[in-house]
């Protein structure tokens, strides 16, 4: 069992654990914190998967952006004076059954599929290559994504404003 394996299990545990906290804790603020750690865990997983650029992006955007956004959402929508930051759950029993079923299906599929694995497992820095691809082969999706972001920005501002 080499270092990578150990690291994987550590990150996996961190991720799953934090996600569990996020899902099962009744307090929304706690959920948010749980999500924060789950994102960190996923970033670690990316590193193990030789995706250094993605890992950085994960931390920058998810942790630095989305999570902050979510917290703002919590804060703005819950009057903090008479805090009811608790979240309730519903239709628990059917949910457990169905989600359990989905998980079972997924795991079954994963284990029963004969993956055609590629041979080499070299570690190479990816940032430069991704940058090059973004500006060449993926230029159009890149541009569209920018437009999408812009549109989302304006749209969000428009929707959220008080009339």
């Amino acid at each position, binding site marked *: 069992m080499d270092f990578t394996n150990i690291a994987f299990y550590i990150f996996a545990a961190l991720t799953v654990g934090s996600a569990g906290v996020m899902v099962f804790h009744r307090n929304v603020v706690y959920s948010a914190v749980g999500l924060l750690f789950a994102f960190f865990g996923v970033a670690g997983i990316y590193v193990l998967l030789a995706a250094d650029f993605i890992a950085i992006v994960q931390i920058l955007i998810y942790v630095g952006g989305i999570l902050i956004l979510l917290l703002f959402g919590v804060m703005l929508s819950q009057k903090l004076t008479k805090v009811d930051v608790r979240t309730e759950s*519903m*239709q628990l029993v*059917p*949910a457990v059954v*169905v*989600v359990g*079923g*989905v998980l079972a*299906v997924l795991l079954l599929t994963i284990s029963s599929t004969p993956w055609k694995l590629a041979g080499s497992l070299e570690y190479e820095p990816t940032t430069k290559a991704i940058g090059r691809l973004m500006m060449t082969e993926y230029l159009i999706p890149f541009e569209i994504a920018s437009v999408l972001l812009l549109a989302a920005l304006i749209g969000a501002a428009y929707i959220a404003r008080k009339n």
Partner: protein
Amino acid sequence: MITNAILILLLPLAAFVVQISFGKRLPRKGDWLSTGAMFIALFMALSILVDAISTYESNKVLAAQTWEWFSFGSVHVTFGIVIDNLTAFMLFVVTLISALVHLYSIGYMHGDPRYSRYFAYLGLFSFSMLGLVLVDNFLGIYVFWELVGLSSYLLIGFWFEKDSASNAGKKAFITNRIGDVGMFAAIMILFSTFGTFDFDGVFAGVAAGGLSDGWLTAAGILLFFGAIGKSAQFPLHVWLPDAMEGPTPVSALIHAATMVAAGVYMVGRTFVLYSADALFFIAVIGTITAFMAATIAIVQKDIKRVLAYSTISQLGYMMVGLGTGGYTAGLMHLTTHAMFKALLFLGSGSVIHAVHSQEMDDMGGLRKKMPITFWTFLIATLALSGVPPLSGFFSKDAILASALEYGMRHSGQMWIFVIMLLSAGITAFYMFRLVYMTFFGEPADKKKYDHAHESPLTMTLPLMILAVFSIGTFSWGWFEHLISKPSLAAYGAVAAVAEHGGGHDDVAHTAHTIAMISSIVVALSGILLATTVYYWKKISAETWGSRLKPLYNLLWNKYYFDELYAATIISGTLWKSRFLAMFDLRVIDGVVNGVGRLTAGLSNVSGKVDLRVVDGLVNLVGRIVAYAGARLRTLQTGNVQSYLLMALFAVIILFVIQQF
């Protein structure tokens, strides 16, 4: 010369177009423009006439030209102009009277709200009339024939606010149309036989015997129907007296001098076409017309109506002239009559202008107030009565001679001459009755008399010019030389059709002498009688009128023609049209709607069946669905998350199914 002719034709048309488009905006509303155009045309026509007279050849074709109008592939329809001596005379007469009437109208129509419109219509008429005399084929003559009818309609109904005027216009147009249909039928016969509209082509075909006698007579009589309508011959004469509703200069131009003579001109132009039977028919119609109209004129009180019936009567004379073979006599009477009858109408217009009434009972003694009008009027009256040596004497005498000659050649046909002679006497009588009642005696209406005055120069100048032409310009010989009776032989070998009429032989000479003497006698006795009754008052017209009450009523009511037509043709047509309209609505449409209702009824029955049986089943299905829906709607929570859950559940089920 062709260019001149085209210019003569186009000048009035141009005047019409200009006047109708912006006549109102021209200075003096453009009367000078129309009048000027007409006078230019007059001088051009004069030059053509001078050419014709100086050439001095019988029936000489001075110029002719033909253009293709349109073509059907094998059939080419042409439009052409032909100028022979007859055309030259007609051009001169039409342009002269038209120009004078234009001039006269400047005074007469002064201040009318539709002044420029009036001149526009005059231009349209002059154009159509000139086209009618210039054109060289049947289709063309029919075209202009209808166009003069249109301008006549427009001018009769010029003061259309008066119901009588608009009625008269309509009556004129429709009555003319009846004749025109006959004319069109004749054209159909000729065209379908000879394949051409050209006069020359048709005449050549007739000369070659292309039509059997029966068809030729039919074509001739049908063609004459057009003239019956246009020249107000019996039995289609009823429109002309009513046409006096139009302005008086118009009556002079259209309903006395030119348009009504178009029928005579047309018969003259197509003279060689008529078979002996057709000519006899023409003569009979002419005789009836001449006599009937003359008798009616005796009792009329409206000055214009007397003149109108006189016109009808004189047109009858022309027809008799043509019908009895006196080709030259008929056409000469056309020319002379145009001059003095236009003069009479313009003179009566001058009187009407002065006293503002058309009733002769309102007039009297006007001789002193209106000397120019009186003297010119008297000249015209003498001419019309046939007093030598005025122009009317020569032409009327020629017609009577022709009628007499006809009677001498055809046994049993002397009655035509007798009646015509009688009518000549009546003519002299009613004309002098008119003159005495208008210009002599005591003024009937003092106020109107005091108000009366001589007309302005624009009105009297035309009177004087026409008086000159009425006096004695025409004598027999040279006119006959220029316009002599055409012969079918000129158009090819005469086959089966016999030549009709006759030349100058002893019979003709005898006839001439007898006719001349008797006509002078009759005219003078007519004048004498009129003088006795209306000047010396030796015989009371009232007494004789009441003694002969039934006859008087008959004449006063114009032989009840209007009433007869109203009761038969007009109301018959109206009744038929109402009946058919009702028939259309109730019966034909009723059948359609009945079928519709039947179908609707059937569908009603099948609808009932449908409702109970078929629809019952449908409703059952509907109810089941509704019930199921009510049960199932509880699933529809509106909560997105539960939907998602269901979807996922379905995914799992699918997976399971897929696995096993």
